[in-house]
């Protein structure tokens, strides 16, 4: 029985004997290809395509020292909050202060999931829960996350958090629960609606207008033009993970 119009039925009939087994193998191959083709077509129709790569440019010269508008906005938008335990509390975005040891010059900047093109968290995940969407957004599928936390260890940016406590009153668009790993989703629910991430909006409203969000693959987008004209730095660019979040003034 097929429940869905767009998904082909994948009921595998029982096969008997060697000949049947071999036939079954051939059939299995065809099935494996058929859903793949369907998914590919479906992805095109849905609009989440690899033609787009979402990214952010953060000008840290505009990022004010005591300001944490982006962090507050993220927590409010996605419903994460502390339990008074800084070692284990979830933190999707945080302000990091860098100090130049020679001159004592201090600079504060926001760090969150860098949405790498070559994400180490995805490569180490044993269940496929940590994945990269076609448009470059790196996410955790909490339905299949087993909470092993390999991705947290693999991430060079310490961007991921593990939820230690029972969670109540989640935002409907940002489900989160005990025993799973989570991180910045680049406000995927907003991006799918054509809006900007909460941190970007908050910085433009209450902060120094340091964030720019856009399509890195589109040469005519504001972010691509800025990157082409002035360049920007990737944190730990030496790792070759090709982050989608770039910093200017680092």
């Amino acid at each position, binding site marked *: 029985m097929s429940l869905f119009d767009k998904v082909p039925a994948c009921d595998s009939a029982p096969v008997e004997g060697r000949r049947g087994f071999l036939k079954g193998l051939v059939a299995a191959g065809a099935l494996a290809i058929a859903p793949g083709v369907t998914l590919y077509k479906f992805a095109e129709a849905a609009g989440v395509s690899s033609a787009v790569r979402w990214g952010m440019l953060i000008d840290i010269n505009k990022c004010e020292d005591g300001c944490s508008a982006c962090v507050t906005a993220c927590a409010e938008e996605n419903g994460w909050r502390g339990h008074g335990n800084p070692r284990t509390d979830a933190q999707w975005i945080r302000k990091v202060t860098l100090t130049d040891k020679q001159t004592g010059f201090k600079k504060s900047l926001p760090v969150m999931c860098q949405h790498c093109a070559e994400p180490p968290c995805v490569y180490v995940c044993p269940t496929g829960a940590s994945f990269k969407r076609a448009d470059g957004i790196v996410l955790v599928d909490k339905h299949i996350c087993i909470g092993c936390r390999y991705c947290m260890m693999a991430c060079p940016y310490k961007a991921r958090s593990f939820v230690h406590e029972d969670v109540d*009153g989640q935002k409907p668009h940002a489900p989160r629960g005990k025993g799973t790993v989570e991180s910045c989703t680049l406000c995927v629910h907003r991006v799918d609606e054509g809006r900007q991430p909460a941190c970007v909006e908050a910085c433009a409203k209450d902060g120094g207008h340091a964030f720019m969000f856009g399509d890195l693959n589109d040469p005519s987008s504001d972010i691509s033009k800025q990157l082409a004209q002035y360049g920007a730095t990737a944190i730990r660019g030496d790792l070759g993970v090709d982050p989608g979040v770039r910093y200017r003034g680092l």
Partner: protein
Amino acid sequence: MKRFAAIVIVLLTVAAGSAGAADWGVPFPSVPKAAAENCVRDTQFMRANHMELLLHQRDDTVHQGVRPKQTALTECLTCHAVKGGDGKPLTVKDPKHFCRACHDYAAVTIDCFSCHNSAPEAVNK
């Protein structure tokens, strides 16, 4: 197993409808009415297959970014919301919550609401 449990519920409910629960001498779940009728599929189909639809939808949404309003979990929860004494929608902590009404009866544990909010809008406790 889920499918089997659902079929059992459907059969029991159908039986309850035709013969009347009292005749059987066994308790039946009292399923709260939804605000709309047959908005995704007909009732019998939904009773037997809602879990398949949810499973399908969740993968499409998380991985493909497909967010059709009609079959979104938030829409299910909005339409099937049961109001409490204070007029606010009940959460899954209350046995009268739509999902619990049947799932308690069938002794099928659902873990959707360990991550998802069980009320239509964020109800902070």
